């Protein structure tokens, strides 16, 4: 049986209660191609059942609801099933299973959680705000996982007096701090009127980005490993252009222009190599 649910915590927990004893259960929050003769059911959230289920799980494992919240944020197609397998194991063993990394269900879930928290961590650095004429800050993002509201406390902590909007353009939603409250809201399109000197600051930042690079040490692979290309599009420093505009040079860093041998101090003072 395939159990469709809407991706919310309540719906997941309701579906879990239904599917728990079903050996071939598949929980999914997305679309799923049914096999011939396969049965499916859409499970709407039942707040009462979900609350009971949550209470019981919290008794078994105090922090498992945090795991669930992270798992359901994942952009992974199979997130419903990964969470289901993880929670079924908690229910079977009647204890926290987080550290039992030899179990498939646990490794899959922890990998999935790791990807979500990693992206949230990365975005703390890669988000780029623009200043609007009103003084508020606006940043478009397009994360793989639904992490925009995970970023709220971080930016609220450092910019308590400045209202800001983190606009997840992929999911058409926004995480907002208005100076007193923080909340999430659907947001299709935003019209932004930039502050007068915003472009000047962006160009200053581009200038800075260009001048801290050491062209004789070209390591694009490393750069892309730390800062995957999918995050580049909202960055005013324009890393793609910086990579393209590098002076042409051989692939190895040590053969670059700076390192090329030239007639020079210590060599000049040495005698010419004798040739046989």
């Amino acid at each position, binding site marked *: 049986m395939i159990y469709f649910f809407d991706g919310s915590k309540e719906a997941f927990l309701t579906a879990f209660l239904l599917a728990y004893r079903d050996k071939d259960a598949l929980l999914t929050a997305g679309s799923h191609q049914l096999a011939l003769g396969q049965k499916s059911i859409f499970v709407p959230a039942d707040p009462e059942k979900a609350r009971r289920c949550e209470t019981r799980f919290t008794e078994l494992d105090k922090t498992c609801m945090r795991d669930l919240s992270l798992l359901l944020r994942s952009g992974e197609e199979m997130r419903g099933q990964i969470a289901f397998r993880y929670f079924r194991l908690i229910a079977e063993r009647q204890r926290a299973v987080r550290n039992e990394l*030899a179990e498939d269900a646990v490794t899959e879930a922890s990998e999935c959680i790791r990807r979500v928290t990693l992206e949230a961590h990365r975005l703390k650095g*890669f988000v780029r705000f623009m200043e609007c004429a009103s003084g508020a800050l606006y940043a478009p993002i397009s994360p793989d996982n639904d992490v925009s509201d995970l970023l709220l406390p971080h930016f609220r902590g450092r910019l308590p007096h400045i209202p800001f909007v983190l606009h997840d353009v992929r999911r058409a939603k926004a995480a907002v701090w208005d100076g007193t409250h923080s909340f999430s809201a659907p947001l299709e399109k935003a019209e932004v009127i930039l502050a007068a000197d915003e472009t000047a*600051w962006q160009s200053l*930042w581009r200038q800075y*980005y260009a001048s801290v690079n*050491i062209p004789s040490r070209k390591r694009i692979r490393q750069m892309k490993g730390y800062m995957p290309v999918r995050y580049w599009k909202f960055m005013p420093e324009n890393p793609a252009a910086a990579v393209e505009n590098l002076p042409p040079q051989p692939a190895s860093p040590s053969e670059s222009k700076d390192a090329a041998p030239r007639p020079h*101090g210590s060599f000049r003072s040495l005698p010419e190599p004798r040739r046989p």
Partner: protein
Amino acid sequence: MISETILHILTESAKYDVSCSSSGSGRKNEGGIGNGMPDGCCHSFTPDGRCVSLLKILLSNDCIFDCKYCMSRRSHDVPRASATPEEICELTVDFYKRNYIEGLFLSSAVHVSPDFTMEQLVRTVKLLRERYNFHGYVHLKGIPKADPLLVSEAARYADRMSYNMELPSEKSLKLLAPQKSKESLLLPMKQLQRERTVFRAEKRKGFFLPAGQTTQMIVGASPERDGQILRLTQSLYRVTGLKRVYYSSYTPVVEDALLPAVQSPALREHRLYQADWLLRFYGFDVEELVPEGEDLPLDVDPKCAWALRNLQYFPVEVNRAPLEMLLRVPGIGGKSAQKILSARRYTSLTFEHLKKMRVVLKRARHFITAGGKFLGEKNLLAVRGLLAADETPEPPRQLSLFDTPAARSALTGEL
């Protein structure tokens, strides 16, 4: 707003400071802008693979010192510029607000005199903290030979300070940085360390270098061996209580008869960092890693090299070995070791399990057994070859004068 030209001049030579970490400070926001993030945060990466975390900038590049390796040395013909403290503060706050940077790394050439420069630096940081109400990360470069009182005052406002050793021995320092001496660098480091300990013990209000001190050494500009460099590193960690030692592969930016003309190989820098990590997080002592007069091997990493010299300890059984021993297995790092420790409490681990837990077995398989099973190469002599083959080879390059005696005789033709 600071002009683009001045920004370019003042960041051009600041970029050779490798220190970029913004970690270690949990400074809270006190009604202004910014706070510290104890884990640090990288905001961008440049095509050289380095991260941009802090705004690295000089207050001035107009220097009275004449350090041979430096872009801003007195005798070098480059455009000179200075920024006002206000310009720096404004730039920092506006970049920070847009989430471009995690904080400021402020340094300066020795302008007019060491005391004058240090005073300007302190004034800037004070302004940033008090008038601009900035509570983000500030890394301040110490100026050698400045007044000790200025140094302690700076430490009250900065999160981290650093005095760069630059060269790993007094002799090279005399030769290449004649105005600096080992004393002028070590004394303020020790002073700060002493005052920080007192400050913490007395639980005084405010901050005193919450993220500690770091230093930097240029590798490949002078003939010191890795063994010598790492011994200095270890003593800096143990005696002076430094948080980090950075190594910077020598890049020729100025020509001088006393300096090699070639870029020092990046692989050597990499091996030094690997050894540095072994000293700090893996319980190694420098005596185990490399003799004083030798370099680290380039073909395999320092931990592999140690394991190959000490095969009597291997293979270790992952289901029984203590944490200290797991950490000494090549290819197993802190995270993998912790995963193994927690997973083996529930079940006996096999190689399948390890693979699923994403423990990298490429190197480790030669040094471990799982449930009594061994998957490594039985012929011990072949292991080194296999390990070395996995490493990416260093691209061919111009020989350095300091590489090996053999290389020198190849250049001079002398036998």
